[in-house]
């Protein structure tokens, strides 16, 4: 999947989830007829799970075959046409495993699979050829003479030439594309060394010379391909996990037409259609409420933690969540015209502000590549002059220099470290989406947090329940029990934890958008919004209880903290970072929360533009900002920051804009990530030093003409092995 092909300015060029999301948006039709359904099974882990799921599905009507892939934790099911996916999910959940539908369109991973297989094949050929040529070379090094040596060289040539042509293609292609725009990259000296070494060895062999560098050319190809493959694998696993996140959100909506509800893809909706949104569902499009009342959770869009009322003629936006009652909407904008997508322009602007980051490897290559060429050319000219025009000798020495200085270890140094570090972080639940994200994370000195949904779970918790009288609590619990509103559910949960029982209540009914009412002890009781109950609202998230004609009581809520949030803040502060809380929520809520979690700097009621601007201002002061956020209002700031992290529960747009995605619920991995990043950067720099030391030792030997193919092979293998082992020290 080529990033260069995405024409929209909104898609950030660095992130791997973008093409998946774009592809998802482009996909217009529901798959019809017999099809393969892909389900994600995050909890399967054993041999028994495989057979339980496969056997369970095989006995489900409509299923032809089912095959579990334990590595990807997925099952692909071949179904009869018209088999509802919900049945399959229910069946697996009945067996005790979690199951989520994956959008097949977003998972078209065949292209990336093909690339990985291609690289692995070239690697295998290089390995095979290298081992055989090495064996032949050992005979030559240990003193094969005359005809035997020539025969061995010819056989080596016969193996090397096709192998190098096939296996080296990734380098030639990359070097050529750099040269075409008159630039140098690492692949230019690599390609030059491979091609020159083979050409010179062929010439030497035809003159029955002593030295041939066939084995050097092949080990160079092999080690560098290994680095390339490691690099590819790290990216591919991040990409497939990012794709899976995108694919989990199957964009479907219920369209109302002639009184019937039909499930359609969001892309098939047109302006003016009627759409039904059930309680608990995410609103798929921008629209105006036609029928029904409910409350809307806008926290992902604006950072407000307080649900707002929605009744007829209220405007709602894609991405908001409908809480209590069913709503019918008339679509006013779809797809790219929705508020959700308009924010993308903001992201594009913020991104152009992000300075073009040069990775350590790039900087090293830029300094290194010219030196290699100049050194080799100078050696050739100098030896031509010293030897009085002996082109064969001069070329031999020049090629030896080129092979020894060739950035073999450099090509392995970065991928080996990134593979080790991102593997470590992946086990802790952090998904590194961008190749240079770790290096950038290591430089961070300021951390900006969003509040709602990032440091908090977006799950409210009732405060001071014990301040209420037993009678009030029991009445409140009895009413709350009948509702699925998040505040009501939180109340019931907290009551149960405190060992309180709901009191007796009759005629309990939920009035969507307002609250719950019923009869408690022969009195009319209401629990719900301030205005409906007849109370004066307080500034915080609260629900209000009124028993008969008594004064209404406010039950206040605070957002529960995300697990590990305090630990993460603690660790980051200990590491000497400046911490800032930046939220779109009301001033009181933000200040209260900042005090609870222990952040001194807090900004409240920040609009998306404000957040992005503040991050940009910090960057202008020379600070390296890490932005942690999840909402649409954070998206522009995420893109503007030096490096950004978002939780997996974040909105798709926010995940796309960030470099690292946090897979689990726990935030405590954040502190670890910062430490691992610093250690990874240290390892990369050490690796550069190690390979430079090898060069400093070996280059004078090569320049003086003492380098033999044996010395070249030894230097190359030793430096490659040292840097790989050093990479494993990342912690």
């Amino acid at each position: 999947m080529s990033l260069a092909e995405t024409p929209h300015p909104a898609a950030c060029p660095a992130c791997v989830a973008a093409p998946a999301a774009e592809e998802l948006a482009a996909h217009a039709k529901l798959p019809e007829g017999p099809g393969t359904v892909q389900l994600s099974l995050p909890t399967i882990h054993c041999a028994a799970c495989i057979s339980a799921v496969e056997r369970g599905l095989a006995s489900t009507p409509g299923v032809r075959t089912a095959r579990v892939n334990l590595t990807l934790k997925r099952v692909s099911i071949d179904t009869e046409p018209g088999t509802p996916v919900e049945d399959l999910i229910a069946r697996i959940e009945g067996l005790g495993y979690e199951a989520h539908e994956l959008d097949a369109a977003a998972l078209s991973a065949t292209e990336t699979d093909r690339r990985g297989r291609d690289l692995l094949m070239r690697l295998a050929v290089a390995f095979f050829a290298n081992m055989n040529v090495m064996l032949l070379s050992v005979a030559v090094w240990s003193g094969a003479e005359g005809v035997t040596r020539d025969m061995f060289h010819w056989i080596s040539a016969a193996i090397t030439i096709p192998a190098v042509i096939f296996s080296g293609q990734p380098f030639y292609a990359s070097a050529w594309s750099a040269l075409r725009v008159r630039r140098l990259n690492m692949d230019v000296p690599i390609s030059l060394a491979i091609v020159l070494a083979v050409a010179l060895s062929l010439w030497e062999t035809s003159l029955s010379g002593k030295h041939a560098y066939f084995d050097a050319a092949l080990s160079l190809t092999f080690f560098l391909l290994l680095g390339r493959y490691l690099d590819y694998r790290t990216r591919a696993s991040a990409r497939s996990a990012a794709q899976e996140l995108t694919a989990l959100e199957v964009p479907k909506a219920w369209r109302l037409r002639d009184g019937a509800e039909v499930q359609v893809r969001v892309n098939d909706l047109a302006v003016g259609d009627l759409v039904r949104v059930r309680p608990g569902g995410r609103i798929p499009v921008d629209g105006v409420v036609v029928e029904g009342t409910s409350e809307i959770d806008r926290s992902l869009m604006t950072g407000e933690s307080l649900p707002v009322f929605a009744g007829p003629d209220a405007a709602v936006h894609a991405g908001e969540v409908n809480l209590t009652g069913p709503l019918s909407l008339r679509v006013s904008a779809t797809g790219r015209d929705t508020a959700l997508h308009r924010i993308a322009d903001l992201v594009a602007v913020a991104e152009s502000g992000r300075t073009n980051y040069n990775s350590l490897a790039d900087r090293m290559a830029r300094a290194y590549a010219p030196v290699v060429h100049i050194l080799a050319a100078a050696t050739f000219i100098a030896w031509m002059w010293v030897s009085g025009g002996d082109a064969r000798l001069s070329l031999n020495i020049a090629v030896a220099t080129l092979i020894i200085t060739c950035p073999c270890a450099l090509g392995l140094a970065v991928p080996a470290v990134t593979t080790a570090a991102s593997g470590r972080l992946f086990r802790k639940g952090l998904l590194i989406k961008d190749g240079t994200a770790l290096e950038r994370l290591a430089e961070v000195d300021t951390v900006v947090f969003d509040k709602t949904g990032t440091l908090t779970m977006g799950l409210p918790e009732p405060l001071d329940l014990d301040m209420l009288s037993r009678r009030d609590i029991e009445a409140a619990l009895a009413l709350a029990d009948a509702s699925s509103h998040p505040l009501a559910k939180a109340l019931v949960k907290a009551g149960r934890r405190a060992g309180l029982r709901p009191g007796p209540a009759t005629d309990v009914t939920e009035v969507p958008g307002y609250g719950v009412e019923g009869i408690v002890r022969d009195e009319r009781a209401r629990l719900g919004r301030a205005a409906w109950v007849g109370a004066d609202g307080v500034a915080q998230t609260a629900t209000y209880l009124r028993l008969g004609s008594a004064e209404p009581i406010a039950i206040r809520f605070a957002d529960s903290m995300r697990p590990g949030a305090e630990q993460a803040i603690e660790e980051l502060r200990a590491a000497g970072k400046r911490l800032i809380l930046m939220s779109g929520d009301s001033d009181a809520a933000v200040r209260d929360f900042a005090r609870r979690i222990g952040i001194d700097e807090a900004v409240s009621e920040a609009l998306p533009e404000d957040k992005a601007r503040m991050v940009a201002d910090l960057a202008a002061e020379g600070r390296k900002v890490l932005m942690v956020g999840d909402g649409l209002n954070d998206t522009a700031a995420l893109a503007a920051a030096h490096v950004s992290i978002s939780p997996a529960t974040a909105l798709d747009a926010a995940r796309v804009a960030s470099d690292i995605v946090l897979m689990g619920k726990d935030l405590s991995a954040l502190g670890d990530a910062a430490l691992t990043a610093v250690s990874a950067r240290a390892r990369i720099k050490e690796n550069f030093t190690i390979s430079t030391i090898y060069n400093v030792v070996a280059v004078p030997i090569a320049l003086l003409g003492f380098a033999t193919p044996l010395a070249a092979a030894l230097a190359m293998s030793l430096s490659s092995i040292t840097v790989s082992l050093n990479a494993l020290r990342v912690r």
Partner: protein
Amino acid sequence: MDVLIWLIPVSLFLGGLGLAGFFWALRKGQFEDPEGDSRRILNPDYDEKPKD
């Protein structure tokens, strides 16, 4: 040293056989689910995959 005339082609052929075997396994998708395959071997069920 005449034996080299036989030994070198024979060793190359055997190496090539290994390489061909690797390609075959790669194309058959035997590296797609290493985790699962290592567990399936403990499974008493008859497994007809890969069938083609």
